């Protein structure tokens, strides 16, 4: 099953996100990740949805989404030449003995340490899914206490 990233351009109105997610629930499509935010136009929001499925499912998702009155446009940016990013915060178990190792990993990934507790650190990283997965794998042996991801946002490169 291939992952697809859809940029869904919608009216910035209350309840629009519910309409979109209700549609996914009702038709039995699973959302891998979801990010919503404002755009350069205050009357428009952009929902970035990562959905898993074959061509047929993707076609149905797209057509059903288009039927929502509040959906203005949908772009499948999976195949497009695009930039995608996610922000992740990871709280790692870190006593004095392992801190230097963690700092080294954080440097390699160009991540940042944003909080230091008595026995833990919070690491912040942005990047594409590949980079984030690699960082999380590297931190795993130290013990991950908490992890939170924003969900992917994406944009097509160039002037398009």
């Amino acid at each position: 099953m291939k992952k697809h990233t859809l940029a869904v351009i919608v009216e910035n109105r209350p309840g629009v996100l519910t309409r979109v997610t209700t549609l996914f629930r009702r038709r039995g499509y699973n959302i891998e990740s979801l990010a919503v935010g404002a755009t350069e136009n205050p009357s428009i929001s952009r929902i970035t949805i990562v959905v898993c499925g074959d061509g047929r499912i993707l076609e149905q998702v797209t057509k059903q989404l288009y039927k929502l009155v509040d959906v203005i446009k949908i772009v499948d940016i999976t195949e497009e030449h695009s930039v995608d990013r996610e922000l992740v915060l990871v709280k790692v178990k870190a006593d004095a003995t392992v801190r230097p190792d963690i700092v080294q990993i954080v440097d390699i990934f160009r991540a940042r340490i944003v909080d230091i507790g008595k026995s833990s650190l919070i690491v912040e990283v942005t990047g594409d899914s590949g980079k984030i997965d690699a960082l999380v794998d590297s931190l795993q042996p130290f013990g991950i206490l908490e992890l939170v991801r924003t969900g992917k946002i994406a944009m097509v490169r160039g002037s398009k």
Partner: protein
Amino acid sequence: MQLSGAQILLHCLQEEGVDTVFGYPGGTVLPIYDALYDSPIRHILTRHEQGAAHAADGYARASGKVGVCIATSGPGATNLVTGIATANMDSIPLVCFTGQVGSPLIGRDAFQEADITGISLPITKHNYVVERTEDVAQIVREAIYIARTNRPGPVVVDLPKDIMERRIDFTPIRDEVNIRGYRVMKGFNTGQVVSAVELMQNARRPVIYAGGGVISSNAAQQLMELAEKRGFPVTTTLMGMGSFPSNHHLSLGMLGMHGTRYANYAIAECDLLIAIGVRFDDRVTGKLDTFAPHAQVIHIDIDAAEIGKNVDVDVPIVGDVREVLEAVNQRLEKADELSEWHQTIDRWKQEYPLRYGSSCEGRIMPQHVVEKIYDLTRGEAIITTEVGQNQMWTAQYYQFKHPRSLLTSGGLGTMGYGFPAAIGAKIAFPDRTVIDIAGDGSIQMNIQEMATAVQYRLPVIICILNNQFLGMVRQWQGLFYGGRYSYTDIQSQPDFVKLAEAYGGVGLRVKEVEEIEPALRQALAVTDRPVIIDFWVEREADVYPMVPPGASLLNMLGGD
């Protein structure tokens, strides 16, 4: 001009051509009802909000106009839900205005507060909560526009009480509706039409499979032209009944679970399936991978999401059925090359006509009642049905000649739909005969609307095929659950004759075959009140032929 939100609402409805609404008052819609008091809009007071929704739906199906209903907040709004879902499944243009508690109370679990926009989200084409009196006009116009255009459907508009009460300066200017996320479908892909015509001209065993989309796009004439041009046999879905006359020599009747054997055989054997305004519902297709296994498929529908939803299509054409068929007919050459195919079909028709047995106890057969209703109305009545055996026998034995003459809950299968829908149809067409063919189970689900029919002096006829069973469920229990009739025996029931009379209607009871016709004649002669005819029919008559759920269309029980 200073107008209240409620007055603006009614003003805009009138502008949109709405002259009749169905509804039930309550606390939060008091401002609307106060405005209705001296509005030229006619309000039909039902006895339950579900009745109002179905009546507005029946009005819409019969007339092709948008049906409008009003209910108060909370339970009033939730009582509409079944009616909204019914309209949604059958793509019926319905606009429901619901009262809502005053804006400052929303979200505080106020008295009679219900989140009807949240509740109705998955069963509406679109819905609105009006937040400012200034937005009322625009939203009313949009709601009606969305309900009736493209693939029609229900729209809910939730109206907080204070928004309806507030008075603002109102200048009646009719703006064009312009919604950036909603565009009315125009045109179609001509290349696809050319491909479709080519397939049609080369097919040896083509079948047209026509559905509700033909009726909602008013394309019956174009369908007829298409069929007759090359002699394409036509089978219709339940929703498509009337789009092609059942008594036409090219008609195969209904297909699917309770379709004719010859329609289902034709589907199994065809080399080209011309699907028009249909959605390949499971009750039609049976087991999907055995549906029309040898056929190339042309699918014409206004809803792009229906293309490829259930089956793969060779030539999809997204567009208004009527426009597309006009283009197809223009290009299609007239020919008469299908005599071999017609012979095969005629053989099936002769071998496997629709037929039913007789009652061993000499009781009336329900199918016979439907045939009699057809004979006496010459197929010109508007027929509504409830859901279950009554619905299927009606589809099989009433020969529908015209579009919009069968009003039935095809998709949702709502028991209790038929009677209020008949009221709506009678309001739309006071001069036409309107008959609800009902079961003794279904009719009790909205029987309270007798009071409505009496109040408005509507001579709607209810024919109860009374077998004292929830018949269709009993049939399945007999066939698939070892005859264990679990909770389907409803011998305890009211005296329907007395019940009719108690409401102020006419009640008749028919137990003998020879009484059927006189009773129907007597009912048809009534001009000022509803009539219930209680037909005591064979208790365990089944609907045949039948494709068991999930089976192939060739795997039919009965009727052989």
